[in-house]
């Protein structure tokens, strides 16, 4: 196909060069002849005149060079002219057919726009380098668990492959007082070298000094840019000032730059992690730190992991208590970026894949529109061939048209995307890492442009080749119908539309599976009754409530006052509520059930609650009793356990009266009740072991109130704030939410993924329907004569309708069959997103083809009805 074209092009070039050379020769020859004639007239002999003419002419070579320079410039100019001409012509052609142009541009804009939006998220979250120095060398060390200060120090001593290791805590909370109304802050305890390891500097002042991890020297704090602006009016003089965090005065030493969001977005303060190796419990027993290390140049994460593994025996040796045999089995090191964004990656890639399908459908759609138009342009092409245009020339012209369509679609798409990106950035579910970096950056624009160019080739190439192939033997004849060429076109278009349907089936299946998962998720019983429960976090400042008695009095007072509010049926407090961050876990020892040597102790969540907690939350009591006012500090220590806990350690037996304790303490707790299981973190997690302790015997300073109420949440929230302020004006009330919101927030991510995927599936369905409509309209148009003849021969409207619909159905069936196979494969990739639904969910796989078939038939119906209105008399006369 290509070779003859190339040869023709080559011949063309050769011919052009010959012509130029000949012209030059001719011009010089003429000059020399005239000069010779002149000299002969002046009296020279012909020979001498000839020689003199040549001498006077000088360098022929210089003239030749000047001519060559002229020719080069000319060919460039002609090339540019041709492009401009092609573009102008393309614009004119498209203008003549505004309906087609609008449909194509809109289709492409949707495809390119949607891709750009999703790419902006992929780019901001997954691709852009972390805003730290040389971020490729940062690794998250031993990320599968949290660590103690002792482990950190042991690692730092042995760091070789790792240049250094730093530690940080996630999601600590502090109360800031003395700077306006008391407020809860998100903070992080960090080792002083953290900023150095990450390679970041303070925007104002400094970061932490090594000496500031000594207890007593740690009264300093680094502020986030956001907090600095919001609470301190961006005053640089804040450095050196004292602020009160949790009742403790700390000197502000610095402010971080705005783009420093670590370890989580929204972190307000960084305080030094204090290290006191003499306090064994604090040094080894409190396990809450995450580790980040910087690799030496050339080192790999695997080498770092090996280094950490080699430190495990010495950690085990130094620990004041025996560790289970599998301690250290989960050592690894992964890039910090992986650790920060790893859990969002699968969802983003799924969405990127989905949106790629949408673009594919858009391309197929435009390609089929172009092909349909190709038949209509046969006469035009024949004329142009007759006028001497080569096939390459026509293909170039048609590709220019595609490019212009793509550019118009791309520009519109980028405008759509600019809106879409900001909409997406503000609607991302809370807690998505690096959400602030999602935006219309230059690299996103570059992606959109590249996509635009690629699509123009993708949808333009085949139609251009087909259109530029003038039908043999039918030049300049009016109609195109009945020729074999039209039927080839129709088959190609049919194939494209079948591809569209197949892609739509894949997307719709994915969306269907996710929707089914969400619905299954919503059906899960969380273990409590979320309806009508309001929660609010209260944090009485430590400096005023420095004893357990004072704290107890505070909560007793507060609970009593809240209980007295109208519309409040019951109220309780808990150290933490289910589905919220900050659950505390502890290793349990069961009396009479010693652990095998080297086995790890069972880990249970521990909730500290006031007596009415179970009633207020609607957690059912299965056995024994709930806590009462009689479970005072001086009463025998008691505990309530979850059903799963009771079944696991006393299968079939009675847990009431049995005793358990925390591995780190000596006091035994007697089980007095068994309550229903509660999901701890979200609806998908398993229920696990749970232990409840009475607040009176296990005081905690910061508690969350749970209030069962009929009141409007807003009114109650206002009441609650003024009520807490009346008890203590320095106590902040934070995170006032309905329990229903808390539960629903735990589903925010899957719901968001589902929403986007469903939107893309809907888009795919619409584009697919447009495609089917387009191809059937085209077919009806092509066959107007056939249909007319059929009707003249006695076919009635229903026959015609059936005839057209059947063709639509065949297309749809082919597309659906291919699509189902694809969907079956694609659903496996979704496995990690499914809940309570298999990847081969029969309901979804049954529903999707039905929906697609209905849509395809509806899209064929309009053209089919048009076919029934064909007037045979008119058609036949038209021939």
């Amino acid at each position, binding site marked *: 196909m290509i070779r003859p074209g190339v040869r023709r092009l080559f011949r063309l070039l050769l011919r052009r060069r010959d012509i130029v050379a000949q*012209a030059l020769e*001719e*011009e*010089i020859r*003429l*000059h020399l002849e*005239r*000069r010779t004639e*002149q000299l002969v007239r002046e009296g020279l002999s012909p020979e001498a005149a000839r020689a003199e003419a040549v001498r*006077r*002419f*000088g*360098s*022929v070579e*210089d*003239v030749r060079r*000047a*001519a060559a*320079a*002229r020719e080069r*410039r*000319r060919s460039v100019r002609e090339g540019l002219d041709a492009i401009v001409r092609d573009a102008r012509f393309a614009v004119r052609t498209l203008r003549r057919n505004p309906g087609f142009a609008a449909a194509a541009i809109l289709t492409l804009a949707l495809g390119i726009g949607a891709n750009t939006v999703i790419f902006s998220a992929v780019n901001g979250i997954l691709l852009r380098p972390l805003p730290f120095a040389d971020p490729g060398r940062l690794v998250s060390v031993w990320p599968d668990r949290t660590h103690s200060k002792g482990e950190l120090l042991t690692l730092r001593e042995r760091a070789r492959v790792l240049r250094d290791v730093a530690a940080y805590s996630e999601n600590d909370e502090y109360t800031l007082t003395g700077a306006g109304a008391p407020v809860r802050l998100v903070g992080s305890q960090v080792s002083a070298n953290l900023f150095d390891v990450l390679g970041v500097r303070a925007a104002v002042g400094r970061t932490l000094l090594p000496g500031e991890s000594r207890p007593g020297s740690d009264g300093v704090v680094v502020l986030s840019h956001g907090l600095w602006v919001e609470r301190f009016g961006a005053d640089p003089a804040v450095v050196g000032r004292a602020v009160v965090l949790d009742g403790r005065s700390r000197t502000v030493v610095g402010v971080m730059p705005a783009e420093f969001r670590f370890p989580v977005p929204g972190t307000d303060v960084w305080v030094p992690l204090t290290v006191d190796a003499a306090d064994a419990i604090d040094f080894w027993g409190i396990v809450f730190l995450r580790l980040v290390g910087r690799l030496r140049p050339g080192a790999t994460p695997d080498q770092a992991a090996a280094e950490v593994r080699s430190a495990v025996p010495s950690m085990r040796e130094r620990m004041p208590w025996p560790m289970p045999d599998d301690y250290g089995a989960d050592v690894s090191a992964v890039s910090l970026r992986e650790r920060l964004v790893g859990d969002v990656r699968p969802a983003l890639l799924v969405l990127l894949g989905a949106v790629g399908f949408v673009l594919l459908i858009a391309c197929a759609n435009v390609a089929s529109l172009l092909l349909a138009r190709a038949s209509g342009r046969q006469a035009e092409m024949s004329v142009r061939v007759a006028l001497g245009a080569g096939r390459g020339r026509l293909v170039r012209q048609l590709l220019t048209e595609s490019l212009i369509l793509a550019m118009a679609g791309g520009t519109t798409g980028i405008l759509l995307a600019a809106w879409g990106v900001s909409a997406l950035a503000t609607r991302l579910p809370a807690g998505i890492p690096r959400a602030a970096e999602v935006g219309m950056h230059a690299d996103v624009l570059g992606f959109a442009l590249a996509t635009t160019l690629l699509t123009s080739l993708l949808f333009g190439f085949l139609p251009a080749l087909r259109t530029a192939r003038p039908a043999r033997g039918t030049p300049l004849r009016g109609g195109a119908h009945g020729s074999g060429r039209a039927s080839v076109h129709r088959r190609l278009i049919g194939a494209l539309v079948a591809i569209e349907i197949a892609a739509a089936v894949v997307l719709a299946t994915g969306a269907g599976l996710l929707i089914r998962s969400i619905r299954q998720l919503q059906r899960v019983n969380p273990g409590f009754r979320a309806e009508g429960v309001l929660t609010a976090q209260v944090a009485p400042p430590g400096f005023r409530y420095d004893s357990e008695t004072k704290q107890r009095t505070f909560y007793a007072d507060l609970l009593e006052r809240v209980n007295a509010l109208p519309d409040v049926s019951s109220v309780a407090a808990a150290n933490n509520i289910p589905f919220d961050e900050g659950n505390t876990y502890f290793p349990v020892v069961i009396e009479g059930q010693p652990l095998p040597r080297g086995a790890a102790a069972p880990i249970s969540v521990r909730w500290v609650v006031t007596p009415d907690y179970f009633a207020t939350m609607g957690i059912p009591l299965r056995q024994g009793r709930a806590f009462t006012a009689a479970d005072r500090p001086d009463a025998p220590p008691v505990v309530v356990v979850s059903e799963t806990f009771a079944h696991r350690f006393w299968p079939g037996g009675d847990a009431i009266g049995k005793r358990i304790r925390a591995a780190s303490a000596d006091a035994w707790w007697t089980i007095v009740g068994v309550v229903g299981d509660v999901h701890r973190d979200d609806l998908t997690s398993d229920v696990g072991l749970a232990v409840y302790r009475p607040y009176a015997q296990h005081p905690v300073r910061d508690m969350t109130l749970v209030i069962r109420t009929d009141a409007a949440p807003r009114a109650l929230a206002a009441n609650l704030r003024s009520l807490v302020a009346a008890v203590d004006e320095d106590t902040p009330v934070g995170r006032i939410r309905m329990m229903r919101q808390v539960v629903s927030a735990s589903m925010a991510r899957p719901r968001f993924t589902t929403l986007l995927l469903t939107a893309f599936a809907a888009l795919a369905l619409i584009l697919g329907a447009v495609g089917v409509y387009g191809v059937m309209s085209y077919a009806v148009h092509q066959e107007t004569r056939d249909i007319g003849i059929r009707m003249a021969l006695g076919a009635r409207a229903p026959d015609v309708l059936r005839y057209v619909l059947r063709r639509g159905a065949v297309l749809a069936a082919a597309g659906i069959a291919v699509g189902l196979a694809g969907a079956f494969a694609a659903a496996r990739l979704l496995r990690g997103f499914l809940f309570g639904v298999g990847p081969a969910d029969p309901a979804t796989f049954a529903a999707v083809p039905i929906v697609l078939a209905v849509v395809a038939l509806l899209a064929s119906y309009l053209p089919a009805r048009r076919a029934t209105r064909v007037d045979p008399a008119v058609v036949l006369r038209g021939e």
Partner: protein
Amino acid sequence: MSESLPVLRGTLDLLVLKALSSTPMHGFEVTSWLEERSGGALGLEDSAIYQALYRMERRGWVEAEWGVTENNRRARYYGVTAAGRAHLEAETARLLRYADVVAGILTAAPGAA
């Protein structure tokens, strides 16, 4: 010819444009036109004329067209384009002013300034 004056490239362009400004000519006609007007005082090889023509063709100041000479020979005839005409006018004015100024200085009585 030993006393011939060298011609700068830009100046040659102007001379050729001037030659063509009244009527299109082929290369030899331009050459003879210039020889007549200069009395043969310009130190030019004939090839320089063609280089000037091609150079100006490249710049879009002149356009060539095949035509027929009085003895029925095929020849490329060069004509001035609008851009060439504008160039000729602007550069001629500039060159004349330059010559005036230089001449004024060089011909002033010694010590007058």
